[in-house]
């Protein structure tokens, strides 16, 4: 016996095509990828510099509240996108000094100042910043470098 074919009721949504999630997921993934790629570039604390390459550098995992000092090619100091004079830098370093010591007086071992200097910056300008760090008893520093694998990729 032939089965009687039932024509779906156009008014009944549940009987029709289901809600298609594909475009929404696509758009979501697109946005995630877009913001993943853009946030790295739009980080205002990092000035656009050509960093030097170091083979023995370790991966940098950002610590919240860490002080990041950019030393530009001409020797200017930039923190959070703003140029700072030596006097202003000293104020920032004094605040960092207070923040780097816990209530018990111990220093946070992982809290190192990150100095980002252009590969063509004169060492004297970096040394000046290092000198000010020393003046404020901030001994732990780290120099930002470029990933050697990525730099090879860029060269080719």
């Amino acid at each position, binding site marked *: 016996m032939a089965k009687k074919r039932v024509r779906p009721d156009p008014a009944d949504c549940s009987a029709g095509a289901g809600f298609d999630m594909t475009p929404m997921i696509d758009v979501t993934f697109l946005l995630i990828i877009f913001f993943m790629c853009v946030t790295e570039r739009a980080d205002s604390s990092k000035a656009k510099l050509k960093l030097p390459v170091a083979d023995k550098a370790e991966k940098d995992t950002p610590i919240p509240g860490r002080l990041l000092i950019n030393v530009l090619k001409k020797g200017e100091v930039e923190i959070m996108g703003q140029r700072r004079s030596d006097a202003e830098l000293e104020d920032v370093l004094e605040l960092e000094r207070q923040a780097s010591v816990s209530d018990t007086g111990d220093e946070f071992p992982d809290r190192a100042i*990150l100095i980002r200097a252009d590969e063509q910056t004169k060492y004297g300008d970096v040394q000046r910043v290092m000198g000010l760090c020393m003046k404020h008893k901030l001994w732990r520093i*780290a120099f930002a470098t470029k990933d050697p694998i990525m730099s090879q990729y860029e060269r080719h």
Partner: protein
Amino acid sequence: MAKIKSQVNEEPADSFTSMIDIVFLLLIFFILQPFKSPEMKLRSELPKDSGPSSSTDNMESIRLEVRTVPGQEDSAYFKISMVRVDDPDRIFRALLNQANNRTDVPVVLDADEAVHFKYVLKALDQCYKAEMRDVKFSAPPPPNAAKHEYMETRRQRDVSR
């Protein structure tokens, strides 16, 4: 009859939408990926004393100098305990030779103010490559008045060596 046959052969059309979506996603991802180069860092520690006669200078240490080539702004040469090394990639071997393969010997990194930072970092990197982790930066010269005195002390020390 013909009408029924044509209906049976009619296959549902392939939807290319999802495939195109994925292709575009991959395309965007791989186009933007090279720009997102992760940064690395080289840890270091600053000397806790300043001036020409820092504590590390008085100990048995290796002095690694980074000097500018006169007249050539974008080049530098290296000196390890007064022995000149031109190839920066050979510094670590020269350091180990100088230290008789001991990695616990402290290294004092002394660079000219005018030298490009990349050479100083290269020198530091080579120390770490030689597993010599005790690297101290030569203390920066004291400001203004004491600077002349500092330079004179440094010159005399170099002459005596």
